[in-house]
């Protein structure tokens, strides 16, 4: 059984922005984002529970030909 995810922390948001994305943000901005991110991730958790077995993503790779 998966353990419940702890709430996202301001420091984590700042770390992702700075270290992974290379676009540092202030602590105040990160704090204001934490609520948004929590609610967005809550929405996304519903997608993870959908019956998506054998369902391919809508993006399909198409090889590019020389004349394109």
């Amino acid at each position, binding site marked *: 059984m998966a353990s419940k995810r702890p709430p996202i922390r301001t420091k984590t948001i700042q770390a992702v922005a700075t270290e992974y994305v*290379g676009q540092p943000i202030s602590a105040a901005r990160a704090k204001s984002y934490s609520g948004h991110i929590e609610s*967005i991730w809550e929405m996304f958790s*519903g997608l*993870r529970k*959908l019956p998506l077995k054998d369902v391919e*993503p809508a993006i399909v790779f198409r090889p590019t030909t020389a004349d394109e």
Partner: protein
Amino acid sequence: MNDLHKLGAIQLGAAIGSGECSASEAVDTCLRQIKRNNDKVNAFVTVIAGEARANAQLVDAEIAAKGSRGPLHGVPIAHKDLYYTEGVRTTAGSKVQEDFIPEFGATVVARLRDAGMIMLGKLNTHEFAYGPTNDTSHFGACRNPWNFERVSGGSSGGSGASIGMRMLPAATGSDTGGSIRIPAACCGITGLKPTYGRIPRDGIFPLCWTMDHPGPMARSVEDIAVLLQVMSGFDAKDPSSSLLPVPDYPRLLNKGVSGLRIGIPNRHFFDQSDAEINVLVHDALTEFEKMGAHLIDVDIEHIEHASAAAMAIYLAEATAYHENQLGEDPTRYSEQVRTFLDLGNHVLAKDYIHAQRYRTLLGQHLATLLTSVDILATPTLPIVAPKLGQSDVEIRGHLEGVFAALLRNTEPFNLAGVPALVVPCGLSKLMPVSLQLIGGAFDESRILAAGHAFQRVTDWHTNLPPYLTEL
């Protein structure tokens, strides 16, 4: 000829083609209307009066010598400021692009020009099309022709407001989650988000590559059909452009609705809309029944997850597109758009992929559903145009964000890529209410025929905003 600004696109084209009026008179009339009314709604961000007048003279000379090219020859148009226009500033409503002058125009701009339409300028948009209100723009909020204290809706707000305010008969828009249909509904006009791939995206600033749909906005379905005809068709410069042949949309308009099976979703759309809007949309559906259509209760499986999937895709794709510019100087973006772009940095790749898988699931379900019914019908919006700066709205005792409410009924059909037409169908609180008709992929002709049949027996699409009727 007086009152040219009251004519729709093909009425005006017919008047020009027959010599009843000239293209120069049509352009001058629209420019006068813009001068008189643009400060009320802030729809135009650039007006190219001199160039438009010069082009109108060329059109008049051509028509005098060779006759009209077709139904749109000499008809004025303006483009959402997301569309590249050669030699004319294209800002995307953002300080980031305030000095950008493209060296080429969008494919659609060229097609409309080749049909003889005369560009008058560029239209306000929500910054980079990243919002459904158009109250965030480098040029200031775009306001609603029906009530200047309310939003035009967005992101194609300038397109909606300019047509609603009778400054123009037609405009282009683009729709990623509802950005043609929302301002069309708010401003009391007609708009079409076609099937993904029907109209090429080349030369239009992207918001989300996999969800962006260019399309026409006008006063009537008849005008929309003629504009769609010109805008549609394969374009090698757009990798998502469809190779399917383009039907003769205007010729198919008069199919009628006798025997048409209209699916009415039993949740998500009507039950979460304002009660008065529900009544008006049901009244509109009764008109279809009177014309011989059948209303059939349907369920769209998993529809409740559409907002989550759309959000994952907006956030991921928009942030990827803007990453370099955002890193260079984030202060050049508005606070709202910058917040969305920052939030996109926290979307996991797997959630983006799940969202794209959800699109397949939803698309398959809709395709199956659209074998048992011919089209679907919903309210376009669950609310009327909100007030400028309003962040929350109460619907049936439930408080929710304005953005979420505005997008709820429209964005599922961006995810599925199927066509959706919106037509005015009433007034609530003195503001326009709109009906949305959804068809199967590349079946625009069926929803256009249904919308046209509705507009032949109703006159909501001819209603003028109070400010114009009081003049």
